[in-house]
């Protein structure tokens, strides 16, 4: 057990690191490509946080790609076809994904273990095929040249500049993603350490018993799944914004599996596991690029070894980490 003061200090260090130290280091070293990589890590970790929450209620979720894809398309269609502001399309994409997940979730969340995992895996494929078939998504050609996000101003005061007017639009995207990541994980931390977190744990450990002590298990499952899908949709929407395009293959089964692996690798018992897992997995893959055709072999070998040696994830090594399961 560590003191709350230490937790606050660690959180503050992390915030300063990602909002000040990292941008400064990038500017100093001239490695501007890192903005895009780190933005990706931040966005992927937001989607993984959603998956982590479904793990926390005892469901193996391999379907986050479906909601990321849906979120990307919803935001894009709103911006391109309806001329809505990108900023407004973000929460709408998240909320529509949450709504979709409630519809899908009520029947499928009754399944447990490998059965839920299989159905969620299929969801990703359903989303891809839907994107191919629906008229509004423009089929395999997808939607490209999405305009960059416009400015946000309040009472004539510009809070966020027009992304198109910035010399490198990846910089504001980096700040947007990192700020959202911080907010998302702060919210998750609060969730897990409130009574709801313990209710989720009771669900994960024994649904029958949870329901006998009066926990409305079907409601709680759907709420957790909706939050998860909201985060998936949000991250997919920003991805579409940053790459200014969306295709049916933007998020595939492989991405869904990666979201799950990020959670495993970071540790299912730790709220901040998905950040660590996403970071390590993303950079680990890139670092192995030099090994050429052995990249996948070494990568998967290391993953298997890590899961054998550290079944509770990388954060189980960290003396500061607060276990929440």
């Amino acid at each position: 057990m560590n003191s709350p003061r230490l937790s606050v200090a660690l959180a503050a260090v992390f915030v300063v690191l990602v909002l000040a130290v990292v941008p400064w280091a990038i500017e100093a070293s001239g490695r501007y490509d890192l903005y895009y990589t780190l933005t990706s890590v931040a966005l992927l970790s937001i989607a993984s946080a959603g998956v982590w929450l479904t793990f926390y209620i005892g469901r193996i979720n391999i379907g986050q790609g479906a909601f990321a894809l849906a979120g990307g398309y919803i935001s894009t269609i709103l911006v391109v076809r309806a001329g809505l502001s990108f900023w407004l399309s973000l929460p709408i994409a998240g909320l529509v994904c949450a709504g979709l997940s409630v519809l899908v979730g009520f029947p499928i969340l009754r399944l447990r273990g490998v059965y839920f995992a299989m159905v969620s895996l299929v969801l990703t494929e359903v989303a891809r095929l839907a994107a191919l078939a629906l008229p509004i998504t423009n089929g395999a050609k997808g939607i490209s040249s999405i305009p960059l996000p416009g400015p946000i101003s309040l009472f004539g005061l510009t809070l966020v500049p027009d992304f198109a007017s910035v010399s490198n639009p990846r910089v504001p995207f980096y700040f947007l993603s990192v700020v959202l990541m911080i907010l998302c994980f702060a919210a998750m931390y609060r969730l897990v350490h409130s009574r709801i977190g313990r209710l989720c744990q009771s669900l994960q450990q024994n649904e029958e018993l949870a329901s006998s002590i009066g926990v409305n298990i079907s409601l709680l499952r759907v709420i957790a799944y909706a939050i998860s899908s909201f985060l998936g949709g949000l991250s997919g929407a920003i991805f579409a914004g940053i790459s200014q395009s969306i295709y049916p293959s933007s998020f595939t089964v492989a991405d869904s599996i990666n979201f799950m692996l990020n959670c495993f690798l970071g540790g299912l018992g730790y709220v901040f596991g998905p950040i660590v897992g996403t970071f390590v997995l993303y950079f680990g893959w890139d670092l192995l690029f030099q090994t050429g055709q052995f990249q996948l072999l070494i990568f998967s070998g290391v993953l298997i070894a890590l899961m054998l040696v550290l079944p509770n994830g990388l954060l189980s090594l960290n003396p500061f980490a607060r276990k929440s399961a």
Partner: protein
Amino acid sequence: MSAADALLQVKGLSKRFGGVLAVNGVDFNVGESEILSVIGPNGAGKSTLFKLIASFVHPSSGEVRFRGERISGLAPHIVARKGVVRTFQETTIFRNMSVRDTVIIAHHLRSTASLGGYYFGSAAARADEKQFGRSADEILGFLGLAAERDKLASSLPHGLLRALGIGIGLAANPAILLLDEPFAGMNHDETKKAVDMVRRVRDRGVTILLVEHDMPAVMKISDRIVVLNFGQKIAEGTPFDIQRNDKVIEAYLGSDDPTIGL
């Protein structure tokens, strides 16, 4: 026990699984503050009856009424909220939670705050939290689990797990507690202690309905006994009556069959 002052009424309750009538037209009443046991040979339908009363399974026909109100067909958590709370056998626990956390979370039924209130730490949520902590400590003391409060539930020995199961039930503030084989797999001394504990729970004002195999314990603890065989009620009465009931003896030991000379 007349129907008018019964706490729980089971009326013509039947449950069909495919071609099998697991429970077949069972009627009985449970009075306030009594200990009623349901016994019967294996496969008599005791477990199904138990699940029907706790509303984990819905009846094919008939109904269960609690304080005159029909509870069959409601979701288990609603039935629990009304005061009909079941316990499980000891394997059904929150394995990775501490004993105290388990009992605290089991107070969920009593909570006054909303989910949003929990999230933002509203005054009601904080008051709940405080009150549940106190109540959990009281229950743990009552069940003799105070020394175990910070241990993981999965690390407790069987006897104490059984007590924890009852603690989980008590936290829900039940009017009637359904106990699923509370004495199974216990030796003589453990059973004696457990019988004593169940009596003390009843003395707190909680009505007890239990399903059990252990005959000596059932005879010792019950005010009344209901005997099931092949899904039907074959006898009901005090332990004294049941021990002398021919039908019960027949169900348990088999009857003389003159055609083959047995």
